[in-house]
């Protein structure tokens, strides 16, 4: 079936180029914008006529954006770690144990994800102000968890189901407590699932604009996506597009790093050799 005729190769290359261009043009456009000077920003040319890194130094010249980045990284990481810790234990219990209310938990988890965020954000705003969570890290981590947890539980329980139960029995016979069996045998094998869930949870928290916009007001907890919206030019009359573009590029970098680190760990077939089927 695989015939590597030049014609075939050419067609494939062409197809790949088309897809890449389609996917990357907006990204390149943003990068290009971020490298233009304020005077040429509106010239509509695809490549900047005058190259400058001025926008980037502008972005970091005030503490405003740096603080937002710090908030973003902190909040997204904490939400991810907590959601993974709870989700892995919950998913393990759901796949391995029979207990009353098991289906109710799964259905409940699914139901939570079905609410559009916009429908709860108004209520949260009032509630958070009442109990003092408004404009705090926890105030953002909690709503992020409520969306990341169900997703992680679903992904992880799919992975746990694939792990042969005999391995756990073997660990028990070898003298492991349930916790040791989970931590030293089951969890290492479910790592691809943990990383998959982790990436998705992190991206969801990182990219959120709605909650971050409504539930924050100062540098104490404002995240990067919201900070971008608050950019204005050096003076009242400067177009801030260049700075916003630079900020957008900077915001994508941590996600890129996360994905690059984790995707190497997402190797399938890690359980190969455990049992002969």
């Amino acid at each position, binding site marked *: 079936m695989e015939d590597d005729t030049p014609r075939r190769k050419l067609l494939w290359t062409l197809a790949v180029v088309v897809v890449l261009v389609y996917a990357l043009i907006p990204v390149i456009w943003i990068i290009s914008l971020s490298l233009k000077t304020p005077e040429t920003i509106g010239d509509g040319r695809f490549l900047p006529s005058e190259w400058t890194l001025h926008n980037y130094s502008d972005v970091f010249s005030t503490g405003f954006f740096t603080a937002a980045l710090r908030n973003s990284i902190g909040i997204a990481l904490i939400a991810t770690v907590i959601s993974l810790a709870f989700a892995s234990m919950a998913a393990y219990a759901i796949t391995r144990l029979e207990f009353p209310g098991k289906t109710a938990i799964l259905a409940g988890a699914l139901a939570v994800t079905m609410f559009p965020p916009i429908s709860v954000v108004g209520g949260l705003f009032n509630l958070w102000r009442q109990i003092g969570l408004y404009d705090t890290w926890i105030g953002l981590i909690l709503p992020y968890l409520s969306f990341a947890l169900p997703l992680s539980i679903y992904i992880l329980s799919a992975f746990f189901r694939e792990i042969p139960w005999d391995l756990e*029995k*073997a660990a028990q*016979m*070898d003298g492991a407590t349930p916790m040791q069996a989970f931590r030293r045998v089951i969890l290492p094998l479910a790592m691809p699932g943990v990383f998959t869930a982790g990436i998705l949870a992190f991206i969801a928290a990182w990219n959120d604009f709605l909650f971050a916009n409504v539930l924050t007001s100062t540098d104490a907890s404002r995240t990067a996506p919201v900070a971008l919206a608050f950019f204005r030019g050096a003076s009242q009359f400067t177009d801030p597009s260049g700075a916003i573009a630079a900020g957008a590029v900077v915001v994508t970098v941590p996600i890129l790093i996360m994905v690059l680190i984790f995707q190497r760990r997402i190797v399938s077939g890690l359980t190969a050799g455990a*049992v002969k089927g």
Partner: protein
Amino acid sequence: MADIVLDGVVKRYPDGFEAVKDLDLDIADGEFMILVGPSGCGKSTALNMIAGLEDISAGELRIEGKVVNQVAPRDRDIAMVFQSYALYPHMTVRENMAFALKLKKTPKEEVDRKVNEAAEILDLNEHLERKPANLSGGQRQRVAMGRAIVRDPKAFLMDEPLSNLDAKLRVQMRAEVARIQSRLGTTTVYVTHDQTEAMTLGDRVAVMLSGVLQQVGSPMELYNNPTNLFVAGFIGSPGMNFMPASLDDGVAHLPMVDVPLPQNVLDRMGREPGKRNLIAGIRPEDFEDAAKVDSQTRSRGTTFSAKLDLVEAMGAEYYAHFGIDAARLQSSDLMELRDDAGGVEEKSESGDTVVVARLNAESNAQSGKPTELWLDATKLHFFDAGSGQSLTYAG
């Protein structure tokens, strides 16, 4: 090392199904005990209860005299070899074997020494740093054994450890298992559905059917003196031949011939069972080509003529198949045996029931020809057609 006692052990599932019914079994210190039976007979459930992986519904399990019904698997100090091996795929062979010792916080030098020792016994030295995925089936099986050996536990439990190997390797590993067990002298409970493994490996064999223990004894006891139809048919390959029979005044009427019974058989049956419906059981090797039986031996039995349907040359012997004119036997034990054999039964042109005879390699028996066969009457077994219980059982 320890003795294991099952005292009236029952496994009852929430839906009321009893997988193991009132199981009594004494396994002596250092003994190699085999649990054998067709699939679904409760043997694996019994093993899991000894391991602690399944709860015991009723009865008592004692290890070294202590009741362990409520003791967690990790505190029973018992090692188990799983049918699937259940090796930890993310650990090397060395880490797999050392896992239990590390959990016990054994000093590192001792762990290394024990792992190396076990690797020596199992010929795994060169593979210690490899992952299970890169090992062959036989090597994985040995790692699973090694994981049990390094712990020096009170007992080994093995759940069909050889059934995933191909036939040749299985025979080789069977010998290996027997060698290791006798070398270490550790109490071993071994579950299998393969009667050959049961016969060759065990000090004693426990035959189970539908959760009920049928008979416990040494392999030869089970073979020569089965307590019922099921044990008689399950142990031995090719299996025992069964046919309807009736008894009249010391003469057994078999479908192919009337056999005057020798005194030893009559003695074993005790009182005359009357003219009830009986089932006669004859092992294939208790037939012989009449021409190859000397006159002295000949007096122990009866000769008859049979038309052979099929003669299989095995090299050291012939398997001769012939049909007898008898209706197919109806017995629950025999149904179980048939299911275990895959649900098929051999058919013959000259009768509904096929008998297999094991003949001397020098026999001139040929398929399609009538041959004079001899039957050793002293080795006959008789069973009650209704209950399946042996009437010739000398227990």
